[in-house]
């Protein structure tokens, strides 16, 4: 122990006292009191930097496992610090010591409660993390409340944290189970890939038996899987494995015979066609197939845990013929770190017992290298032994012969055992192996010899008839063998088969009599054994020898040997006292013994699910969940259909639509996706046709996804609008379908090109994230005004929220006549721009209405107006009649000055310009009424513009008013306590300045419109726009 001075094991004591002196750190009260005071002083100082320094030192102490609990009061004071690093370190400290200092820990709770309402999602999330990590039972109700609130948070990151908090609360207080399950149920419905893994983890921990909660989410989980983060994938896959085993019928044929025909039938049933006429064709549940299909690409993951979990899923769920796909990936993992190899090899060992066929082609990958650690070598040996068959045994044996020479003796010994197993399993080579082992008996190395003897002994026992030669050979070698176990084995063999070597056996006994006193116990016992057996078979020659040995044994030092000797003597030497038993001595001692079985140690490991900890340690680990057997009859599969019923779920089907689109745009999902998604579409029966068509046309769906999604949003949010609108809606839908049809016609080659623009990925995602709350808006609107307040409540604490309303209207950018066939329209999707936070995102729809293909459509290098423009990536080809939607970002610099740029095709350039309406230069903001007032107070005087307005009678209802306002400008609604006062808030995209709008109705048709903003120009322009809009019906 060279690093003794660094030993942290002892706390206190002279040694650490010295150390404490050096590092000025407190340990126990005595030694480090001075330093502790030092730190306390630093923490109580007014300088942030000193406090931070102190916290850093304290964290250093915690990291080394020292006790810093006495500083708790001083540390907890800093929990509300503004310095984020200091705050984080305090959190670390709190989580570590709160359990020990519960009363003091309560002081910090209010800070977290406040932070839970912070507009910054990171702060909300970390507050929840710490709050739920403080293991103080008294705050359980607070935690429960916080979790419930966070589970409905708008940020998926916070919801993810909530899912983690569920487990923490459950481990703190299991009585909360019922309530927690409710939260889990809610979160399981979440569509965010970020949340999925964590909530399934919570499900597994809290209520793994509530399989009914999964039904409705099964298809969603399958479809989301590729996009979930890797750790979540592992958890979801293992949960789905268990689920599938309870819900689907076995794809394995009962008789276990797979002839060509049945195999064919299997493949056909995969295609979900009815198979060839067979007695009872097995048809796989489409959901079962969906799971298999969606997990398969994950075999290519870089994360070894994901690959392993897919492998075990296939092993436990796939038809036997399909399991083969996993082998290549598993073999690939063998290149990884040794720990990974260890686990993977263990699992392969179990698999290779049942299906050696799938690993046989990769046999060479299991060849042992001299640099492998011993446990890896042994596992490879195990697998090679399992894979041995008549065809490859000679190759394997040749390889084994090399291993026997290994310098790693434990491994050489294991190899000999393996040879023994091959010899018993494959009768063809038994003799070869025996001969080989006999040759090893003359090996120089003792362990090799000893192991060989033991294995030969076992082998001879299995077929004792014709091997007297080998026994003789071993008897000859006996003098040179020193390893006790080997000597004992030889003695046992000679004793057992003494009738086959009648001449040699007595001689061996004679030699043993000479050396008896210096032998090991195990050898002595076998000597006594041999003597007894010889006495019974050949008492003439050995009577005296036996008595001599028994006498030696009688006075031996070892208790066991004296005991055994006494027993044997009574048994075999007839005298008055030994009654009935000695008559049977021969039958007792020379009974034919069953041969030992040489079996794999992995034989019974398949009782555990592969890839689990229990499988690795070969015993049931705490919390292991059994994999159930296949049900004999399939449970009702309709439970997995997703339906639209309750108003709360109104948005579910529309969410369902984004899912296939999204997974599609990542290119990961199978081409067969359509099927699963389509199923879901039909499941959501009442949804309009566009839902199923957009999901089933998965290939081209993505591009139109953007379109359709927007219109969908507006569709639902406008659903209480007049019938005139719904007509328009229908028209829109028709148009969309037509576009889709056109795209469908396009050659597959073109589809890829349409995929090319990378901009879609982040964009769709952005939409995706924001979606999560848009539907709630839709809900309130469709919910017929009854809960505007509720809706508003949902928007608390958010800085930039999703647009309340997205206008459908698009503006012409380039007419097809001037564009020589290229037509372009633009539209403001009102989403935060992903290319830069000062940019307004603009969507361009480019249509080729000419009769020839347009190539290389892009935005020209030069912009005349000097705005910063993020170009869309160039479109290589646009077929006649096709159209494509791309998005771009423009920094309008908070002015309505038009952005001029050039739209280029391969042949032409067209100057175009986008003139934004002032209302599009904002991003909606939500805030509380108090905040609004506060901010408004700051923006008085110069920054305030107001005007009296007269309103068209249609606009006076509060709903219509809000609608009008948010359609003109991209603003968020601020809750208000007063009836005739409406407030809206937004920030300008480029500078981020607040724009606050309030409308105060004086009577039914007139009121006062006030705008407070630093950007006075924008303010007055907005005022004008709003005024005109409200005046119009």
């Amino acid at each position, binding site marked *: 122990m060279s690093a003794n001075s660094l030993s942290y094991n002892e706390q206190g004591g002279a040694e650490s006292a010295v150390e404490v002196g050096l590092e000025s750190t407190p340990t126990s009260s005595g030694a480090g009191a001075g330093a502790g005071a030092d730190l306390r002083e630093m923490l109580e100082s007014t300088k942030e930097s000193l406090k931070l320094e102190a916290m850093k030192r304290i964290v250093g102490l*915690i990291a080394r496992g020292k006790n810093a609990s006495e500083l708790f009061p001083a540390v907890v004071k800093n929990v509300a610090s503004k310095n984020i690093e200091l705050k984080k370190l305090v959190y670390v400290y709190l989580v570590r010591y709160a359990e020990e200092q519960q009363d003091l820990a309560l002081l910090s709770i209010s800070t977290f409660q406040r932070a839970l309402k912070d507009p910054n999602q*990171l702060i909300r999330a970390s507050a929840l993390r710490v709050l739920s990590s403080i293991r103080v039972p008294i705050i359980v109700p607070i935690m429960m409340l916080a979790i419930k609130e966070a589970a409905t948070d708008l940020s998926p990151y916070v919801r993810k944290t909530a899912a983690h908090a569920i487990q923490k609360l459950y481990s703190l207080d299991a009585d909360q189970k019922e309530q927690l399950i409710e939260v889990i149920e809610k979160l399981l419905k979440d569509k965010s890939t970020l949340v999925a893994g964590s909530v399934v983890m919570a499900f597994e921990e809290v209520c793994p038996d509530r399989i009914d909660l999964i039904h409705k989410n099964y298809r969603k989980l399958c479809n989301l899987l590729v996009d979930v983060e890797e750790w979540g994938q592992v958890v979801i896959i293992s949960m789905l494995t268990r689920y599938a085993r309870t819900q689907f019928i076995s794809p394995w044929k009962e008789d276990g015979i797979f002839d060509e025909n049945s195999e064919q039938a299997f493949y056909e049933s995969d295609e979900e066609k009815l198979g060839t006429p067979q007695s009872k064709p097995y048809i796989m549940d489409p959901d079962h197939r969906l799971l298999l299909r969606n997990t398969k690409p994950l075999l290519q993951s870089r994360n070894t845990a994901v690959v392993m979990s897919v492998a075990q899923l296939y092993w436990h769920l796939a038809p036997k013929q399909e399991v083969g796909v996993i082998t290549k990936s598993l073999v690939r993992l063998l290149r990884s*770190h040794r720990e*990974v190899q260890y686990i993977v090899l263990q699992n392969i060992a179990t698999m290779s017992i049942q299906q050696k066929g799938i690993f046989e082609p990769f046999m060479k990958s299991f060849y042992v290298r001299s640099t492998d650690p011993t446990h890896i070598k042994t596992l490879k040996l195990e697998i090679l032994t399992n894979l041995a068959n008549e065809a490859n045994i000679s190759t394997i044996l040749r390889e084994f012969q090399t291993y026997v020479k290994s310098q790693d003796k434990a491994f050489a010994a294991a190899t000999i055992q393996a040879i023994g197993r091959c010899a018993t399993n494959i009768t063809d080579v038994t003799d070869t192996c025996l001969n080989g082992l006999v040759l090893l008996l003359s090996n120089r190395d003792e362990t090799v010899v000893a192991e060989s003897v033991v294995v030969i002994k076992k082998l001879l026992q299995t077929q004792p008839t014709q091997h007297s030669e080998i026994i003789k050979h071993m008897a000859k070698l006996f003098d040179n063998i020193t390893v006790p176990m080997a000597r004992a084995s030889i003695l046992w063999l000679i004793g057992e088969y003494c009738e086959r070597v009648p001449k040699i056996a007595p001689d061996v006994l004679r030699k043993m009599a000479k050396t008896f006193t210096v032998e090991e116990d195990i050898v002595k016992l076998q000597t006594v054994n041999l003597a007894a057996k010889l006495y019974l078979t050949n008492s003439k020659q050995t009577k005296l020898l036996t008595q001599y040995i028994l006498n030696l044994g009688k006075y031996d030092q070892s208790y066991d040997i004296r005991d055994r000797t006494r027993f044997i003597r009574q048994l075999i030497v007839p005298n008055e006292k030994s009654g009935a038993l000695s008559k049977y001595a021969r039958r007792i001692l020379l009974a034919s013994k069953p041969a030992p079985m040489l079996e794999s140690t992995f034989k019974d490991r398949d009782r555990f699910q592969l890839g689990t900890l229990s499988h690795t340690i070969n015993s049931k680990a705490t919390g292991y969940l059994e994999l159930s057997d296949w049900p004999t009859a399939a449970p009702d599969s309709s439970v997995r259909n997703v339906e639209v019923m309750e108003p709360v779920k109104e948005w579910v089907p529309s969410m369902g639509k984004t899912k296939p689109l999204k997974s599609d745009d990542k290119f*990961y999902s199978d081409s067969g996706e359509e099927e699963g998604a389509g199923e879901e579409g039909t499941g959501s029966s009442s949804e309009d046709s566009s839902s199923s068509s957009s999901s089933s046309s998965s290939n081209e769906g993505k591009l139109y996804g953007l379109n359709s999604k927007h219109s969908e949003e507006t569709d639902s949010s406008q659903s209480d609008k007049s019938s005139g609108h719904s007509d328009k809606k229908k028209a829109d839908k028709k148009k969309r379908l037509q576009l889709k049809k056109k795209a469908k016609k396009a050659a597959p080659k073109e589809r890829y090109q349409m995929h090319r623009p990378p901009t879609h990925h982040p964009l769709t995602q952005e939409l995706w994230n924001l979606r999560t709350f848009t539907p709630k808006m839709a809900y309130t609107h469709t919910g017929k005004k009854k809960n505007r307040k509720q809706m508003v409540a949902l928007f608390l604490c958010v800085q930039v929220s999703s647009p309340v309303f997205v206008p459908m209207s698009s503006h012409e950018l380039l007419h097809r006549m001037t564009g020589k066939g290229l037509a372009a329209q633009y539209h403001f999707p009102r989403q935060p721009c992903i290319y830069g936070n000062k940019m307004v995102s603009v969507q361009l729809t480019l249509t080729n209405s000419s009769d020839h293909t347009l190539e290389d459509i892009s935005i020209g290098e030069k912009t005349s107006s000097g705005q910063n423009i993020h170009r869309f990536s160039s479109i290589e080809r646009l077929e006649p009649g096709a159209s494509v939607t791309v998005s771009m970002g423009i920094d309008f610099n908070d002015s309505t000055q038009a952005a001029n740029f050039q739209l280029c095709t391969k042949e032409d350039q067209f100057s175009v310009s986008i003139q934004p309406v002032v209302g599009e230069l904002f991003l909606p903001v939500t805030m509380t009424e108090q905040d609004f007032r506060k901010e408004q107070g700051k923006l008085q005087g110069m920054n305030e513009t107001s005007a009296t307005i007269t309103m068209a009678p249609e606009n006076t209802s509060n709903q219509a008013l809000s609608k009008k306002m948010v359609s003109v400008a991209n603003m968020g609604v601020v809750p208000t306590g007063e009836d005739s006062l409406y407030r809206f808030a937004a920030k300008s995209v480029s500078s981020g300045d607040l724009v606050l709008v309030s409308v105060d109705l004086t009577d039914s048709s007139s009121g006062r419109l006030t705008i407070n903003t630093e950007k006075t120009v924008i303010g007055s322009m907005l005022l004008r726009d709003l005024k005109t809009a409200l005046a119009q019906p």
Partner: protein
Amino acid sequence: MIHSLFLVNSSGDIFLEKHWKSVVSRSVCDYFFEAQERASEPENVPPVIPTPHHYLISVLRHRIYFVAVIQSEVPPLFVIEFLHRVVDTFQDYFGLCTEAAIKDNVVVVYELLEEMLDNGFPLATESNILKELIKPPTILRTVVNTITGSTNVGEQLPTGQLSVVPWRRTGVKYTNNEAYFDVVEEIDAIIDKSGSTITAEIQGVIDACVKLTGMPDLTLSFMNPRLLDDVSFHPCVRFKRWEAERILSFIPPDGNFRLLSYHVSSQNLVAIPVYVKHNITFREGSSQGRFELTLGPKQTMGKAVESVLVSSQLPRGVLNANLNASQGTYTFDPVTKLLTWDVGKINPQKLPSLKGSMSLQAGASKPDENPTIIIQFKIQQMAISGLKVNRLDMYGEKYKPFKGIKYMTKAGKFQTGMQRPHVSCVKA
């Protein structure tokens, strides 16, 4: 899931501990120390150790054991993979992952571990996300921080955390836009004494260093993509595109990352770039042995074989070796019996050789084994599988990036020398 983490150095001291749930006493590591004592080599410590109330899952990297304490069923690979990810992150942050580096940066280490796991479940493991949350320590930043009082901790949720491209942050800017790709192949082979290949396979990786502004979308295509037998991708690669067209299409992470690893299996013929001729003889009864070893190039397509290093574990009976190297230097450690010969570059005109005698322990019987010889080498500008990148295109951004592709072949686990008996002698 993961309850606690202990870092143990090679002398068996716990130098860092972190708990994600309630505190587990460090005495739980005693079971680990027991196993460590039993193991003859550091690598022989079993990765999974069950104890009465916990399970210990450990990985060994850079001579540090990362011991995770588990309380209930969890896929062991999940933990192992995570621990390796932790080590990779440390390496990424501190340049190297040693005990000293960890101790020096204990606060950053703690902040990192705090972000990486929540309640034992991984929260953020993507290096780009972590770097936005906690900035890696640099000397400059330390100085600036002490003066200005700013911190290394980010205040906003990293953009990647919520996006579908979590590996890339938004708003990346570079003045020189460049993308470098290194195709590195390692040959794993076992070759017997007569020079015939027992097993050989190629493990290749494409490591990339991409410093590009904005949100570039790259496509990389190969001349001969069918060569790749089995591949695993960085999550950024669009799998479907690969399936359909054998083209790598991806939005790259910012900085260094491993784009792809692949496998060219033994079914295909793997070219072996070097050969070894050796003859090691011991005479019965004599205390001397002869040692002869010659190296030569083979199937190198005209490229030079560089940085050649030969090592061999000589039999225990060998006391000393008195050898003569035609080039380079050799060392023999009489304690571990390890012979290493740093050859350097192989000159095909004048093949390097190592010849001489070995002295044996008096009275010891003749060592009977052919020692394994392990060879390391490098060949620049060549991928031994013949894999060639066809072109790299960028979409989505307007500038012209600087692109570079480098090839290299290395020896992986390349061992030779063990005598493989003929099938016939087994049959005899």
